[in-house]
């Protein structure tokens, strides 16, 4: 059953990102593992694309140990916003570590710098995992300003973005405002399983 869900997610993401510059994915916490599995499998299956994955949810090391195939993937770079703040000091060539998730300017600089090194003709994608966690570490107003900046900057550089928002009973009012800045919203529901 899980494979059906993951395949379904992969297809929905893949179709949505092809025709939209930015998509927001609203999902319940229980579906988070399936969603990131779907995303990473899509990345693995599309080596001609360039991906930058911002993690504010799980440390890079944790993601790598869970999805070992990412270790050798050449088409994805990570920006980890939480490891340094948690005292994890391990370094990696495939990951840029930001000192703290409050350093949003540094985060936007790193995103742009990574994409600068990607060939102009390569399709570029950015994942923000997740807006929910950025709001935990920052005031909502500043996350809103950051998100506006990123969405506009990536649009001018033809970078597609996928931003995740974890929904429990209902979506936080700030997240609700933010997520609808995207061109397309995908809602993942438990009931799909």
């Amino acid at each position, binding site marked *: 059953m899980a494979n059906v869900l993951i395949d379904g997610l992969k297809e929905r993401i893949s179709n949505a990102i092809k025709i939209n510059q930015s998509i927001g994915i609203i999902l319940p916490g229980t579906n988070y593992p399936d969603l990131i599995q779907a995303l990473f499998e899509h990345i693995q299956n599309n080596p001609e694309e360039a991906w930058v994955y911002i993690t504010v949810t799980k440390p890079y090391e944790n993601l790598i140990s869970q999805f070992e195939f990412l270790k050798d993937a050449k088409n994805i770079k990570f920006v980890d916003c939480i490891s340094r703040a948690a005292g994890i000091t391990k370094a990696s060539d495939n990951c840029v570590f930001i000192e703290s998730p*409050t350093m949003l*300017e*540094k985060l936007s600089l790193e995103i742009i710098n990574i994409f600068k090194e990607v060939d102009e003709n390569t399709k570029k994608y950015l994942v923000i995992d997740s807006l929910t966690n950025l709001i935990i*570490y920052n005031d909502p107003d500043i996350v809103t300003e950051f998100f506006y900046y990123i969405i506009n900057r990536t649009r001018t550089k033809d970078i597609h973005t996928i931003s995740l928002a974890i929904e429990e009973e209902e979506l936080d009012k700030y997240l609700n405002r933010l997520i609808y800045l995207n061109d397309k919203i995908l809602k993942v529901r438990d009931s799909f399983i």
Partner: protein
Amino acid sequence: MEVTELSKNELCNTGMEELDVMLGGGIPTGSTVLVVGSSGSGKTTLAMQFLINGAKQGERGVFFTITEPLFKLTKNMEGFEFYDKKLIESGMVNLIDLRIISERLGLDTEKYTVEDASALLDILRDIADELNVKRLIIDSITALCYRLQTPEMIRDFIFKLGSSLAAMKCTTLLTSEVPPRKFQYSQYNIEEFISDGILFLGDIERKGDLIRTFQIVKMRGAAHSRTKTAMSISSKSGIELMPLLKSRE
């Protein structure tokens, strides 16, 4: 004040992309600019990057330090990708310890008289002239002024230094140390009046973390930005500027 647009060769390109954009192309050639900030704010790094970038464009430069020995300065700079040892070896970038010069001149290294200051000024000018430098750094003017005994001496020293370097079309950065979190430009409240430009390196606190900031307070003759931006220092790129998120915390 009306600002006329300066041509490319009247501007001294810093080689830091975002900074040059903020400056409207670069620092007007021959200007004396204060680089203000507290300890650890990135003054020395910015000054060295300016010097190295100039050397890479064929402009010879000299870095006078009075705050740290040369071996320490170079050791700190070796971690940056912009730093190129070959530029030092080839003489495109010259590093000079002012304390050693003072000693050789037989000056009291802690306290300068009017004559000492004048002798030092002559030496600085002679070195800049002899090497035909287009970029000059004094790190820091605060430490140098500390050795000058009166505000008049400080004023006279900076003014004479600035005018002779401007005549040589040499662009000068003077680093100025200020206490943290204070919006003041210099220790002696004189340096800023003699300078053509002020670059302010500060920080803001966000949730207990310090975000580096950068602002051009003044730049005579340039239509410059006055926006406060965020600043990053990394071994890969040195100084980089980016828009500062300004939402109220």
